[in-house]
């Protein structure tokens, strides 16, 4: 077999087709704000300003083959700080699409293939029947062992449910007990919800692999599944890119979706405000400190300030206002953790950790004992850089802390609690 080569893209031409008026590369002032604020700057000797300069100079061959495009997480922070609103991530997406499949980082390609391989759309390839089985199995166990929840439901394919809830594959696949806290929360607030046996999975690496057709297919399956069950709200679990790829995909591919896309965080906040989730911070007698990671996929790239505000409201309600320390910078200006864009799947460990050093510094500066984040990738990456750079913090999901505060966190649901939090139960 002959070795495939990467074709050369004409970046300047593509940019002109792609970018809205006024956001073209020609408007670049070469001010460097983007590079200064990009955690991928310097990796593979590239940075966003340099990328633009090279595109303008027609250095297409170099750009087409630069590995840096796999280190840029498409977090759009560069655009956020750019006075001209220049969006480099779109070109990065193009450049990724341009690589022959054999050359792309195998981990991302494989994740996308697995997503396409079953009706589950699961990046771990978990087929629908296995998902149904695991949910049922775990549910039965909880009903038996936790009397408070002996009538708890985890509905499957329930037509007309208000919420269609998706699920990150990592839980049913490798830590099934982590699904339980969320079910308990639904139980307490009396939510009318359902899982679906089809298109239940959250993750979507097809976008990151630069495979637009596959991305479209995945979104199509998911949209169809929600439409079929007639749910009003597609409620996205604690996962960042699953929201963005769905929301952005529906718009991009002009799909008809008869439902709203919402994030769990918004509902946590709403239920707490409405008194349906009676959480408080009384349990935190030792004043354990927390910070939050704003996932760029739902904050900067989607909802913006409103969800950032909700996250803070939920966090403060859970841990006590005085025990919350914001990272700097935060909200829409936050740094991507370096786990996004398929980085965790791409096998470029050293680069990923270099990128993550900024996140590590941000967390270390807060001095907080725990990072709360509603994103699976952020969670994994922040844990990894914590170990790598010898940090001493833990990372927890919101659902864990909500159930902890409500005094309903089961024995098997405490994986992410350190000794200090375990003592508070």
């Amino acid at each position, binding site marked *: 077999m002959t070795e495939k080569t990467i074709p050369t893209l004409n970046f300047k031409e593509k940019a002109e087709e792609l970018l809205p008026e*006024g956001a073209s590369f020609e408007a670049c*002032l070469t*001010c*460097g*704000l983007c*590079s*200064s*604020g990009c955690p991928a*700057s*310097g990796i593979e*000797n590239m*940075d966003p300003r340099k990328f633009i300069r090279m595109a303008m100079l027609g250095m297409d061959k170099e750009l087409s083959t630069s590995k840096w495009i796999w280190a840029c997480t498409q977090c759009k922070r560069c655009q*956020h*700080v*750019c*006075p001209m*609103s220049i969006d480099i991530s779109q070109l990065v997406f193009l450049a990724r699409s341009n690589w022959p499949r054999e050359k792309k980082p195998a981990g991302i390609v494989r994740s996308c293939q697995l997503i396409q391989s079953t009706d589950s759309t699961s990046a771990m390839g978990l087929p629908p029947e296995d998902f149904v089985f695991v949910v049922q199995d775990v549910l039965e166990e909880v009903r038996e062992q936790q009397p408070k929840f002996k009538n708890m439901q985890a509905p499957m394919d329930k037509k007309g449910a208000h919420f269609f809830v998706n699920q990150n594959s990592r839980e049913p696949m490798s830590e099934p007990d982590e699904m339980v806290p969320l079910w308990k929360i639904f139980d307490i607030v009396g939510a009318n919800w359902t899982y679906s046996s089809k298109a239940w999975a959250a993750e979507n690496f097809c976008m990151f692999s630069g495979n637009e057709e596959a991305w479209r297919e995945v979104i199509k399956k998911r949209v169809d599944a929600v439409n079929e069950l007639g749910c009003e709200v597609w409620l996205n679990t604690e996962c960042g890119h699953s929201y963005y790829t769905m*929301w952005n995909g*529906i*718009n991009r591919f002009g*799909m008809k*979706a*008869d*439902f*709203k*896309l919402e994030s769990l965080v918004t509902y946590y906040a709403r239920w707490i405000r409405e008194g349906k989730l009676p959480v408080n911070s009384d349990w935190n007698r030792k004043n354990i400190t927390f910070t939050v990671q704003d996932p760029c996929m739902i904050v*900067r*790239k*989607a*909802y*913006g*300030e409103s969800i950032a*505000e909700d996250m803070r409201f939920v966090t403060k309600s859970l841990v006590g206002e005085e025990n919350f320390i914001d990272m*700097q*910078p*935060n*909200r*829409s*200006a936050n740094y991507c953790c370096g786990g996004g864009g398929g980085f965790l799947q791409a096998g470029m460990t050293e680069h990923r950790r*270099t990128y993550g*050093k*900024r996140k590590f*510094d*941000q967390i*270390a*500066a807060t*001095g907080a004992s725990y990072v709360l984040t509603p994103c699976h990738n952020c969670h994994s990456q922040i844990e990894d850089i914590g170990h790598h750079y010898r940090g001493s913090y833990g990372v927890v999901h919101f659902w864990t802390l909500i159930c902890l505060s409500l005094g309903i966190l089961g024995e098997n649901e405490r994986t992410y609690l350190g000794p200090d939090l375990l003592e508070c139960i």
Partner: protein
Amino acid sequence: MSEEDRHFSAELAVIGTGLAGFAASIFALKRNIKTAQVGNTGAVAYTTGYLDLLGSLAPDYLASIEDPWQGIEQLRDSHPRHPLCRIPKDDIFTAFEQFTSFLGKCGIAYTPPGEFNVSGLTPAGTLKPTLCVPATMQVGSAAFSQKEPCVIIDFKGLKGFSSRQVVANLKDRWPKLSSKRVEFPDMVSGEIYPEVMARSLEVPATREKLAKILASAAGDVKVIGLPAILGMHAPDLVREELEQLTGLQIFEIPTMPPSVPGIRLREMFEQLFPQKGVTLIPQQKVDRLVFIENGAQLSLNDSFGPISIHAKSVILATGRFLSGGLKAGVDGVSEPLLKLPVTQPDSRREWYREKYTDRRGHAVNSAGIEVDSSFRPLDNHGRPYSKNLFAAGVILAHQDWIRGRCGAGVAIATAYKAVEEVEKLLK
């Protein structure tokens, strides 16, 4: 997909998030005016951190002036239409006072306005006349005037700041000045941005490591100057701790853009305004502005969809060419949002003098919109465009802030005046 439009209402909508826009929101907060603000990254992210009132005088902009207040008096005779001449001196003073004390309360301490300009050090090793300086830079001006022994330190891999250049240019006026280059702790090799260093200095462990390096670089000298990297979010604290750890006096010198002091200001505003009740929609531009009875309707889009704002009054603080408040085209200079008439040279040929570096500046850099005595923009007939519309900042005509070194002065003083007029209107 079902989407909801987001709608906000406010007494005042500030368009622009440069110094003028931010200053306007500060003054509005002080007067309890309910405010919404929209804007993209403005020139504020590029500033040195120095707040200039007036540094040199037209027509030749030759010598730096020591007394900006007297300078404004002179301007009144020579350039009565300069925006600074249309505001009482006491108001300008109060504006600077309120602005700097707000910054101080929010964690970035500044020197208050005084009677005279101070000399700010620049990365080129020159001195710049300015009115207020960040507390982190204050020691530098003092050390210079005392000519104390001092080491300027720079870092391997950092572009946009060279201690040797600073020293080379200052040496004849500051004989006991010397330079050193050191390595910043725990940085991967290659180009390092000041922003990255500043953020990593927010981590106590990095400060401890850097303190050891600085102490050894200083030798017997007791005062050191660093590029502006002393933290992003809590610069005064970072400096204080480094001083304690090293036993030295430490000050910052601005670097070339993108520099930390500007980013500090922008991030601080973006974070604090929402907490203080301003509806801030950062990093977006207003697409459409229409005036309706008793107010205005602003339309824009963020990544999530359409947003509309209804406001009883509007301050237009959209800056000049860099920020898009004015547009230069083949037919001349225009104001894109409302198509306000722009005062400008008669033809494109008169925009620039022959030599780009001509000290007298270029005519196009005094282009801008006209306002009445209440800072209401004028329409084609010389009448206020709307009784609810005001303007502030460098979008105003008859000033060349680059040559006159009056960027912050024009922005802050006119914002103060515009908000005062807004308050009158709302009453």
